[in-house]
């Protein structure tokens, strides 16, 4: 009996000790900084590691805890992050898309520290594209630092396929349809799509929405200046529905990489995708301008659909001083020019060294400096997450049913429910 008791006691003791140690281990080391992101894929992981190297050179005594959660476009990471933030266990700094994803989720709920003062102190505030800082701002304060910029409204083409069929790249929305129609008479797929994860179709739709509404009109949707029942939005649905007649039949079995690969393999002529597809085409062994061409999605010239990854400072971060040092690295020219050429994106600062970037990215940098920026819906910058999933479902249904009126109505309903 005595033996049993002591055995029970020792078990209880062990469990208690385990708890105590596991908790104290969390708060033990002062010389570290935990960075949370979903950069685990090709290019982005190397970019992050290079950025961490820059940080380590400047602050050799601080150890970076690289907390990543795999999963395309951060689908899983965002859920994990939310749990940690709500549970009062925030990382020191985390990757978040500028715009609604940051403001709506974490700033309005009072979970972030404003960092306008830091940017001014480091003298870098005016080095950034001011339009992009606005995406990270709420009531006059800046809450995160944009590290990189991707462009959403890009269309990539297989130059050889176009040459073989004597196709000139389209210049406007009408000629785009003509070109697609011509291509549909051949054995190549005119427009490659892989929407097994839904957002890729939304990605096309939002660029069409910009084309029909114009940058001003599109941005007006989010501050209430453009009405949700604007007839031009209906036109966008009509045009999108037309485009869908030229996509590959097995689109719902494919991912965006598969669709880009179709252009690479000469099976498809065009692919509308963010410019991470440029990085992917390069990993597949292609050179921009040589084997593949690019153009802004017809109808969206002068507009830059922006997807930006930013880093901020959560309230209650275990090592706020180290986190500030991390943010300083993110904001620095060295940090931005180290990370972006590897990741295949452009810096959010306008004073970057253009010689480090390839011909496509330099072209994109020029547009970024002078175009009107529009926040992406599909990538979390324009609207709350509730609206994004609702639009994904809506577009996903439209691709199958072609019910334009139903989708237009649903769009208005979701705008009323989630946006204002």
């Amino acid at each position: 009996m005595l033996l049993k008791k002591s055995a029970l006691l020792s078990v209880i003791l062990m469990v208690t000790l385990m708890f105590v140690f596991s908790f104290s281990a969390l708060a033990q080391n002062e010389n570290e900084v935990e960075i949370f992101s979903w950069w685990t894929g090709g290019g982005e992981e190397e970019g992050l590691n290079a950025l961490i190297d820059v940080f380590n050179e400047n602050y050799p005594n601080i150890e970076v805890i690289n907390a990543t959660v795999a999963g395309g476009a951060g689908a899983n990471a965002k859920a994990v992050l939310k749990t940690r933030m709500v549970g009062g266990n925030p990382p020191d700094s985390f990757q978040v898309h500028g715009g609604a994803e940051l403001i709506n989720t974490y700033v309005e709920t009072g979970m972030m520290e404003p960092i306008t003062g830091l940017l001014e102190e480091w003298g870098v505030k005016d080095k950034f594209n001011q339009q992009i800082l606005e995406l990270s701002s709420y009531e006059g304060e800046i809450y995160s630092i944009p590290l990189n910029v991707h462009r959403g409204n890009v269309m990539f083409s297989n130059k050889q396929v176009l040459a073989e069929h004597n196709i000139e790249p389209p210049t406007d929305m009408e000629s785009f349809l003509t070109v697609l129609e011509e291509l549909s008479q051949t054995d190549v797929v005119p427009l490659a799509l892989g929407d097994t994860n839904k957002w890729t179709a939304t990605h096309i739709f939002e660029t069409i929405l910009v084309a029909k509404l114009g940058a001003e009109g599109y941005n007006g949707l989010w501050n209430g200046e453009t009405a949700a029942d604007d007839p031009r939005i209906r036109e966008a649905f009509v045009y999108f529905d037309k485009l869908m007649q030229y996509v590959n039949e097995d689109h719902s079995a494919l991912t965006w990489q598969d669709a880009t690969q179709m252009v690479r393999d000469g099976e498809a002529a065009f692919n509308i995708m963010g410019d991470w597809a440029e990085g992917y085409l390069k990993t597949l062994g292609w050179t921009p301008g040589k084997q593949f061409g690019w153009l802004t999605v017809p109808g969206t010239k002068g507009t830059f659909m922006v997807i930006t990854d930013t880093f901020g400072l959560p309230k209650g971060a275990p090592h706020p001083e180290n986190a500030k040092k991390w943010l300083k690295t993110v904001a620095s020219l060295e940090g931005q020019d180290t990370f972006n050429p590897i990741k295949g994106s452009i810096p959010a600062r306008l004073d970057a060294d253009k010689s480090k970037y390839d011909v496509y990215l330099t072209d994109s940098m020029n547009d970024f400096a002078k175009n009107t920026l529009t926040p992406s819906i599909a990538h979390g910058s324009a609207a709350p997450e509730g609206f994004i999933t609702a639009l994904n479902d809506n577009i996903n249904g439209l691709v199958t049913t072609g019910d334009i009126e139903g989708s237009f109505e649903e769009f208005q309903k979701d705008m009323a429910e989630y946006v204002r």
Partner: protein
Amino acid sequence: MEGFYMKRKHKESLTSLAILSPSIITLAIFVYGFIGRSVQISLLDWDTFTKFIMGAKDYVGLENYIGLFQEERFQTDLWNTLYFTLFFILGCLAIGILLSLILNNKPKGSYFLQNLYLFPMAISFVVTGTVWRWIFSPGRLPNDPRGINLLFERLGLGSLQWGWFTSTFSFLNFNVALIAVIIAAVWQFSGYTMAMWLAGLRGIDQQLIEAARIDGASKWQIFTQILFPIQKPITLSAIIVLAHVSLKAFALIYSMTGSGPNNVTDIPAVYMFEATFRSNRYSTGSAIAIVLLAMVGLLIIPYLVNSFKEE
């Protein structure tokens, strides 16, 4: 003497209570406590992240449930669940029973085959989903078929090619895209029915079957008049287990097809995940969870009551 006995009995029950208490407490908190919490959230209006954080208790009654049942996606989900469960159970029973009848005669290599058929059950749904996704990816017909469509072409069975899980055709609310998922699920779980049946068959007195045979019963008659009635409790248990597996097929669907074009392969569990963790509609997500729980309860509770009575 009497008193000592009582005391000892009392002490014993105390000890067993002490041993059981950790699991009772954790069950109470982590299962029943959280079910209660989900019910509560499903009655609130926490459909944005801000409301969730602020945690204001504004009860809206059954509004979330009513909204849910009016949604087209959720209706599709319920139909998909119904057909998936139905064909999944029928498929597993038919193939599993057939295999067990064959193996019961102990043909050559029956032990090897027995393990072979049971083996898929040891694999996680995610692996099954990933592999069968490759197999059923249709490719671009007719020029560039992939997976099983390519196999059909090589075998000269080109007419059997179709879009599999990308098909959006639906018949009496049955989305034919589900066929691909059902095949994968049946592949994984028919071995389970086989094992259950085989265990039962080996326990049946051979004299019974001999007697029937002497009386001139055909094989089919032996099966329908003797084996099936004797195996009824086993079949029922198998159905219960399979039915609740089918309600939890989240991992299979999620890794194999996702919710599919126009939700042709969507199930409530996938919608629950997306509503809660993708769109911050915590109350809607909780409502789906409770509906799912009710569906499982509908299957399990009569079974539990029945087996309790038997004891």
